[in-house]
């Protein structure tokens, strides 16, 4: 056999195509074509029911740029991104270190910590909606019992509190995920480093800041990227808990798009919001990737 220049076997046959075909068909029909179609629909006015759709040119896009609710939704998405990262990362890191240091003693704790990940987002939304309820919820009685009556609030009904209340639930749901992610990375750091550090008289805190944290940089960046992209796409939990209300206080790009398309039957404008959302997520993802590559290049 002649050694091929590449380490891969060069196939001149149609074999690669045949192996790729099933996946490509699914992706073409249910991902690529719908994206193209959404972009196209964003230039039309259509209720989704009648046979005719009317070409609207840039009208929907002009509406979008002047639509205060859309900007509010985008702002809410960004608030969720910021708070998700600012709360989840440190807490998840702290818990991961805790479980790592605690070792076997905390094994049972770890099982309970993992619980929130085992519930569907819908179930979590329904559960917390019940807990937050002003009349029948369990959080307000708890606050009163703990001597904090001013913390008995209409958590989801008050437009000043609703977004905050929802962010708390998002953190509750996702902290375990990042915790396990960080824990796995911590466990892969060689034990020798720890032994060497303690022989040099390093305290637990010093060891974390000087040895563990620098090792976690990569996984931390991954976690933040996941949190960023995930937060921009957020829908299920908010839809279940507030449907974007009260008076758009928790409106997100995704909930607003859903309402326009499937409640108001403005398929054209719904597509415009969806396309804008798509563009924003892609730009965010590409920026993060570019920054990561640039930093890798900097590091040599």
């Amino acid at each position: 056999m002649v050694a091929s220049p590449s380490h891969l076997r060069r196939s001149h046959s149609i074999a690669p195509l045949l192996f790729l075909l099933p996946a490509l068909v699914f992706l073409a029909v249910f991902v690529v074509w719908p994206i193209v179609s959404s972009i196209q629909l964003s230039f039309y006015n259509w209720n989704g029911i009648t046979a005719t759709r009317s070409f609207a040119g840039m009208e929907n896009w002009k509406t979008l740029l002047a639509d205060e609710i859309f900007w509010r939704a985008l702002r809410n998405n960004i608030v969720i991104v910021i708070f998700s990262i600012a709360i989840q990362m440190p807490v998840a890191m702290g818990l991961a270190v805790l479980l790592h240091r605690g070792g076997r003693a905390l094994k049972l704790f770890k099982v309970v910590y993992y619980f929130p990940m085992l519930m569907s987002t819908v179930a979590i939304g329904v559960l917390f909606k019940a807990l937050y309820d002003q009349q029948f919820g369990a959080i307000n009685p708890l606050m009163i019992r703990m001597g904090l009556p001013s913390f008995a609030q209409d958590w989801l009904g008050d437009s000043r509190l609703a977004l905050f209340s929802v962010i708390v639930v998002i953190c509750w749901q996702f902290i375990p995920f990042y915790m396990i992610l960080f824990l796995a990375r911590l466990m892969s750091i060689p034990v020798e480093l720890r032994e060497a550090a303690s022989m040099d008289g390093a305290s637990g805190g010093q060891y974390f800041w000087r040895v563990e944290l620098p090792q976690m940089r990569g996984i931390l960046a991954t976690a933040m990227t996941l949190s960023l992209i995930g937060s921009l796409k957020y829908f299920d939990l908010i839809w279940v808990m507030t449907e974007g209300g009260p008076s758009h206080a928790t409106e997100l790009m995704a909930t607003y798009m859903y309402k326009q398309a499937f409640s108001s039957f403005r398929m054209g404008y719904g597509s415009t919001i969806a396309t804008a959302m798509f563009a924003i997520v892609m730009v965010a993802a590409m920026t993060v990737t570019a920054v990561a590559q640039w930093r890798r290049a900097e590091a040599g």
Partner: protein
Amino acid sequence: MKSRAALLPIAAIWLLIAGLPYYFMVQSGFKSQFELLTAPFWALPKKWTLDNYRTVLAGSFVHSLFNSLVVVSISVLLILTCASMAAYAFARMSFRLNRTLFTVVLAGLVIPVHVTLIPVYLLTTRLGIYDTLWALIGPYVAFNLPISIFILTEFMREIPRELEEAATMDGAGPLDIFWHVILPLSRPGLATVGIYNAVALWNEFVFAYVLTSSPARRTLPLAIWDYQGQYAANIPLIMSVLSLSALPLIFIYVVAQERVTSGMMAGAIKG
């Protein structure tokens, strides 16, 4: 180490934060509606009742469970088939568009499902499969292919090339190699991808919400949604629905803790 004892209070606080909602959910499910409203919310039921569970199990819940099982099984099977074939091509074959196509597939990792929602809904109605379980399978497979292909490609790249070369010497074609060499050696990767997708699809909401409407076609997350719409005031009943719906995943987690953890993390580690 002295710090270990100091960690315990923090550990206990998070134990409460993570555990209390679960505690409320499980114990409320065993209360009567009257007791929930008259006795303290956080107290255990004075009289444990199974009435809520009876009501739920007599309703459409079991049917939804079955729907979820069907949709998830078919989808995961299709994902594993398509993704392993594609991953084999990406990991083991050299063709002109290999890198380009792989990058395009990776871009699929970040695409929000919402940008496809309207066209997929329109396509589904036009095909006459709106409000059937079939409507869900296409989007379910397509949206989970990128991550699955990614994980399996990484996995197959690690398989020693010598085995494949030996098979080629014996005159095996690509299909033989895929079937007899690559697939059997990819079993751990397939298990990880299978669990990851099964969990994700078991909990999927948006597509099921948009593409189905009648109770007989609802999957589990949608059954929960319907219950809370129908029985909004009956918190014990809703809590029993939530407890029941959490059971399958908790059961699988207890049986195969490490696999589930690595399966659920799979998307993140390299992504």
